[in-house]
């Protein structure tokens, strides 16, 4: 289907809401990057700049009860699930009001109440975890689904293999996204795998796979919706490779000289926000005014978030000792 036609199959309200999340994600990460440059962030910053459509797209395709297990460039998914910009900035500043209360940093956030499994640095570790989430749904006969995401690099790890295989054997309700941004830190795809498309990995598991344009919000959203629907219907997992490009360095301290400038120039034209605006205009769902308004709205929200975070208290030293073990009260029988 032609791109425009695809977009037309999505409801206006949904598109506009996703567009808002694209902008919010970009604005928030840009702001965090600026804070980082000012030396105000604790630890490193890894952004999903240029890849926002992926996590916004898949998270928007889920129901409230579903679960996500995002990876380190999925800020959009956290926001769609309801983690607020204020909480996010608080997390980056190590404040007690962040989702981890200062115990962990940056995108290492999780919150069961909002259906978000916390990200673990060790890449692909959360993929087996996601299969277990799906297994719990299957065991209880719930029609819930879990979506997880990995980078191209992460697919080289054993845990990717073990998770994909288990999900396929047991036809679990899990959707595996893969954010193929062509690099893993400095390592180009060709040194990471000998297949051209990451989706070829899915063949080893008898799992259906699909390639989508990761910078096309509607394409990602629709692919996610189809796969989620399938999973919910008990038809098993799907692997979705999103072709995209990491537009910033691996982290904000990486100038990424190893990425050819022309490649970045080429992908700059395919910016997911730009693309969304073109489409929204072409269908007539929005115009420059809408975009400006959304821009103002997200700037305000991000600024409010920064203010909230900055005003928030830091944890106190002895809090270090809290929470190593869970208590009985935390789990109701």
């Amino acid at each position, binding site marked *: 289907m032609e791109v425009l036609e695809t977009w037309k199959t999505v409801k206006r309200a949904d598109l506009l809401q996703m567009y808002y999340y694209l902008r919010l994600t970009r604005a928030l990460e840009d702001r965090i990057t600026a804070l980082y440059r000012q030396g105000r962030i604790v630890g490193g910053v890894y952004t999903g700049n240029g890849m926002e459509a992926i996590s916004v797209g898949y998270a928007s395709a889920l129901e409230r009860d579903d*679960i996500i*297990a995002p990876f380190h460039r999925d800020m959009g998914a956290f926001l769609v699930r309801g983690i607020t910009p204020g909480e996010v900035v608080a997390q980056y500043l190590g404040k007690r009001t962040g*989702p*981890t*209360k200062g*115990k*962990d940093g940056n995108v*290492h*956030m*999780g*919150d*069961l109440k909002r259906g978000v*499994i*916390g990200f*673990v*640095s*060790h890449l692909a*570790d*959360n*993929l*087996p*975890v*996601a*299969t*277990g*989430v*799906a*297994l*719990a*749904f*299957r*065991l*209880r006969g719930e029609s819930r689904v*879990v979506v997880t995401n990995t980078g191209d690099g992460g697919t080289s790890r*054993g*845990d990717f*293999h*073990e*998770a994909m*295989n*288990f999900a396929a*054997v*047991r036809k679990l309700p899990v959707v595996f996204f893969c954010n193929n941004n062509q690099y893993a830190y400095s390592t180009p795809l060709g040194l990471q795998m000998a297949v051209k498309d990451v989706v070829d990995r899915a063949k080893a598991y008898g799992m259906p796979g699909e390639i989508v344009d990761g910078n096309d919000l509607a394409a990602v959203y629709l692919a996610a919706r189809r796969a989620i629907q399938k999973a919910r219907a008990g038809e098993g997992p799907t692997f979705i490779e999103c072709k995209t490009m990491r537009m910033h360095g691996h982290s904000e301290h990486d100038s990424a000289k190893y990425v050819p400038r022309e490649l970045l120039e080429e992908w700059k034209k395919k910016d997911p926000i730009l693309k969304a605006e073109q489409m929204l205009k072409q269908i007539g769902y929005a115009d420059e005014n809408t975009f400006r308004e959304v821009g103002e709205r997200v700037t305000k929200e991000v600024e409010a978030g920064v203010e909230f975070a900055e005003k928030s208290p830091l944890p106190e030293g002895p809090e270090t000792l809290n*929470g*190593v*073990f*869970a*208590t*009985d009260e*935390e*789990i109701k*029988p």
Partner: protein
Amino acid sequence: MTTATAGREVTYLEAISQALDEEMTRDERVFLMGEDIGPYGGAFRITEGFQQKYGEWRVLDTPLSESGFVGAAIGAAMMGMRPVVEMQFADFISCAFDQITEVAAKNHYRWGAPVPLVIRAPFGGGVHGGPFHSECPEGWFFHSPGLKLVAPSTPYDAKGLLKAAIRDPNPVIYFEHKFLYRRIKAVLPSEDFIIPIGKADVKRAGSDVSVITYGAMVHLALEAAELLARDGIELEVVDLRTLIPLDKEAIYQSVRKTGKAITLHEDNKTGGIGAEVTALLAEECFDSLDGPIMRIAAPDTPVPFSTPLEEFFLPKVSDIVAAAKKLAAY
């Protein structure tokens, strides 16, 4: 499958089986995962008959992928299930090490989601298993904050601790000693009971020397105690039962009484749990000590295969007797 039958002696292995069965009946969140635990009933037949009773999903045969199925158990646990995972041998837990230490152990600390997971690890030597079927991996996990570790020595403790582990809201590694499976029997209470995690047990009271130990070595210590008693030396045998969190008070109490301490385990000596117990005593009971703290443990080698080598490797009753005599005379 062994159901609780008052009056009849059950083995250590049957006690484990009973605990699993009763907990699965009591709480439908409890389910089992592992290799060959379904129709086959597990390499040691602990889950024999379980799949018929509880179905293919609650007694789930997994692909050969320890990291994958421990990870899956973690995910299910976060969703409120109570997975009990079986390692075919404790040795293979190394394949799941990353999931256990990085995901399960740190999860609640990092972002507050409990991981009520039990990993059953059939461990230990004396069964001619060689370097890959005899390991004692507890030392690694002893140094991984966020995990609880238990290691029962009797059918009673085995049953009670497994039930407690399943009911605990945290990841618990349950070290069951293969050597004890069919060698140790006892009559168990017919009613439901648990052994609280974190409580040591004095398996024999004595006034002269304390032996602090766990697992199969408890029985060695009890044998040594018999022999020593003939020479008028009264050994106190402290069975830790739980390795994390350690029952420090019980250890201190015993050593404050006897003034002499031996730590004993089958795991390698360097960096083993005996070192920690010794260090705690050297810090906290220094003024009560009437002699050096002695450690008896396996040497720092893999577990060798051949009979004379494995016999040399494993701690012996005579080691305990010699150490206790030396200390008693100090």
